[in-house]
């Protein structure tokens, strides 16, 4: 088994209206339930926006604390979902479901190390 990270690529800007968000939330509940039942679930969660982020930079043995995201962009990491899957095809199938549930593009990346069986 392998771990794969499903990243939700969210455009920067105003969030969708509440009724749309509520529908996406319901779809995600169904998706997460399906992951659990298949034994593929590791962790999933949405993130606050980049305006809530803090960056720590090492400097001369100390660390500098600054406000704001590491890099500005048109997209941000909206949330993550960590899954266990036997191979990329299985991970892509979860990614497909995540894209349909979130209505957003999903990036699928493998972790370097194996997941325990």
């Amino acid at each position, binding site marked *: 088994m*392998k771990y794969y990270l499903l990243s939700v690529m969210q455009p920067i800007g105003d969030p969708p209206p509440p009724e749309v968000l509520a529908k996406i939330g319901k779809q995600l509940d169904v998706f997460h339930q399906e992951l659990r039942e298949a034994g593929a679930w590791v962790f999933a969660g949405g993130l606050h926006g980049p305006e809530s982020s803090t960056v720590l930079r090492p400097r001369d043995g100390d660390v500098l604390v600054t406000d704001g995201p590491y890099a500005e962009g048109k997209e941000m990491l909206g949330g993550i979902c960590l899954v266990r899957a036997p*191979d*990329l095809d299985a*991970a*892509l199938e979860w990614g497909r479901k995540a894209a349909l549930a979130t209505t957003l593009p999903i990036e699928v990346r*493998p972790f*370097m190390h194996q997941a325990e069986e």
Partner: protein
Amino acid sequence: MMPAGSADVEAVFRREYGRAVAVLVRFLGDIDLAEEAVQDAFTKALERWPGTGVPPSPAGWIITTARNRSIDRLRREAGRDARHAEAALLNTPDAPPEEGPVRDDRLRLIFTCCHPALATRAQVALTLRLLGGLTTSQIARAFLVPEATMAQRLVRAKAKIRDARIPYRVPRDADLPDRLQGVLAVVYLIFNEGYTGSPDLCAEAVRLGRLLAELMPDEPEVSGLLALMLLAESRRPARQDDSGALVPLSGQDRARWDRDLIAEGQALVRGCLRRNQPGPYQVQAAIQAVHSDAPTADATDWAQILRLYDQLTVLAPNPVVALNRAVAVAETEGPRRALDLVDALDLDGYHVFHAVRADLLRRLGRDTEAVRAYEAALALTESPAERAYLERRRRELVRT
């Protein structure tokens, strides 16, 4: 046994490399190790076969030798990982390579090489390298990129297969139609790349097409693609004149068409018609078969071709199909009507669009516009054969 020379080993290499790599990938679970083992085995064959002759089953000899050598190598190498791999290898039943599973291995390899998670050009390069047995420098030359660029493309693609764990298997039935489309697209892309460029690529695409047709005899689009390529390839001897300029279908010396390829292609088209599960490749092949049937250009059954383009428009609506359909309309309803259809298309960056327009304008006597259209086409193609043809056409109009 006949003594064997390096030409024999070379021939076996071209024929059996893909089969051997496919089997070894399954044994070793790693493409690089598999390639290395198979190349070692061929080196060994070069030493041995001149003395012993080519063995009765050259592919079996290569596969067995490659497997034994990789076991030896893993034994020599220290480290826990290697011992693990050895244990896995030694657990593999030492059955002789059989026809059935071997076929499946090559199919697995095709689907892995053409996995949609890989970029198209990586799919093409991997397919030519692993299944075609072409060297990195041969592939680089065929695609006019530096060898280092092609080498890096292959290394990255193989790393992604390993790191992301792209599976080594034939997709399940539910995914097969989509995934097969991807494989056919790669083979057709290789063919088209060779059509105006390196003839070796066409030969390789035909070889891959035959392999797919052998491995998936029940897929009508596989037969359709093979037929399409064979019928196009049958005209290669007539497609260029002595100066190397492109000769359009209407001007080709049909006596120079390859009758064997036509017969093979037409038989496949007839098989597709009987099956009656039409798809884009089959319909394109049927169009080519109508051309192949005509003893002279004037005898072409354009009405039939137009009907097939109408069918293709339903199956695969796209501007290039519409452009080719307009060429058939020019023959059935005249160039005026065809020009209206062509002018409505958004294909300004495609040289064939301008070449077709130029021809229609020429036939309508609108020479000045035709010259401009030939010039637009010339600005968009670097193929020497096409350029020579377009230049000649343009000059003829300027002269008169």
